[in-house]
């Protein structure tokens, strides 16, 4: 059913979406914490901008990315000269695209979970001698862990399924930037229905698993 050529997109997809989820997790939780705790002018507007990748057409997002990190983009040449990082038509570019579409899912759920943490508990930790990082890692984050983790799993699923923005920035190069969802598209275009069936089943199984686990995590305890 699946031959060696099919496992390459799966391995690439897992690598890309795991890295993207990690980036979205760290960035999402950090920003969610700031948004949940600090009032600053323009907070609502910035919140909307950060949520935009969730509602914007992926192609629009892909276009923005090309404008920013493309070879002739605002940051592209600088990234290449300074760090030797090329994002166009590389798997790193696919990571960036997936991280950005996955980000709002972590950000939204982490923010809601962090806002639910009783401030009195953090104050109690402070009177017991905890520094601010200790308060965060021993009290705030553990209490927000369930909601954050559920959002992270959804982010992972979203990263796995990313198509539009990835196609525009990383292209569809078999063995290099061709993830599962792009491989499905290719298989259908080529009329290879058996391959498309196998790939689709594979993706569906992974996504169902993620949804079941995340709904378990979100279900009220007891």
């Amino acid at each position, binding site marked *: 059913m699946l031959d060696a050529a099919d496992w390459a997109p799966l391995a690439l997809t897992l690598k890309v979406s795991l890295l993207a989820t990690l980036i979205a997790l760290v960035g999402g939780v950090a920003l969610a914490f700031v948004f949940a705790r600090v009032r600053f002018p323009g907070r609502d507007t910035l919140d909307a901008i950060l949520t935009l990748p969730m509602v914007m057409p992926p192609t629009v997002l892909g276009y923005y990315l090309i404008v920013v990190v493309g070879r002739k983009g605002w940051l592209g040449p600088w990234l290449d000269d300074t760090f030797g990082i090329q994002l166009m038509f590389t798997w790193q570019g696919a990571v960036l695209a997936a991280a950005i579409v996955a980000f709002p899912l972590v950000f939204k759920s982490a923010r809601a979970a962090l806002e639910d943490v009783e401030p009195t508990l953090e104050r109690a930790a402070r009177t*017991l001698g905890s520094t601010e990082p200790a308060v965060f890692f021993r009290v705030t984050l553990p209490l927000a862990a369930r909601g954050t983790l559920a959002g992270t799993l959804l982010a992972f699923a979203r990263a796995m399924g990313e198509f539009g923005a990835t196609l525009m920035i990383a292209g569809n190069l078999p063995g290099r930037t061709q993830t599962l969802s792009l491989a499905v598209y290719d298989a259908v275009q080529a009329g290879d229905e058996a391959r498309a069936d196998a790939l689709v089943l594979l993706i569906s199984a992974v996504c169902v698993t993620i949804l079941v686990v995340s709904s378990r995590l979100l279900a009220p305890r007891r």
Partner: protein
Amino acid sequence: MKLSVDIDVRLRTGRGRRAREFLLRAAFESADERMVIFGPSGSGKSVTIQAIAGLMRPERGRIALGGRVLFDSACGIDLPARERRVGYLFQDYALFPHLTVADNAGYALRRWPWRLSAEGRERVGAMLELFGLSMLADSLPRDLSGGQRQRVALARALLHEPEVLLLDEPFAAMDLLLRGRMRDELTAIQERFRVPMVVITHDLEDVRTFADTLVIYRHGAVAETLPCKAIRDREGEAGAWARIQNACGGVFDAA
């Protein structure tokens, strides 16, 4: 251990159109071991002990505990809560819901990387034993009764070895029977650890039990400071009680 407080705090109460603002001026000091701040709700009692604990910043003033200055707006001193060595018993106890009774009690003993030393484990064990909580060491706070929660919160605060213990209406959420028992327990604990404490309350029974010094709040200021212990020594229990009732009596009519 002498505690002296002299602070101005801007207080906001209510919301929207009913919001009003007033300035709390609190100034008192005492070297007695047990102090009670008495006043109607909304009179600024909680805010006062929050300021002592470093959980809120007064507009101006000075707070000193023993020889240490915790806060002094004139000198720009404002120790963060974690450095004040002040135990705070929150009204709802504020136990960490994700930690067991033993981990709650031992919270302050864990330092990066958050392992409990053998000595620390021993101290937690001894403290739980003292509070009759040993059987509940692995329980979560949500499975405890009100009295048990308060014991855990006390054990947790005491293991941090505070220089003063602040208690925010410690018995308000309890039924009468439990209230009496927990008052006795707290008295015994205080005598055992000799930790100075400040109790805020609007219950005269708490005043009778815990006040060596009584500070009465009225109209956003200290109306009276009564040296109950000195009066008790001079005039006996009945005489002191009469003075306390007399002093506290006007508070609710006026508020």
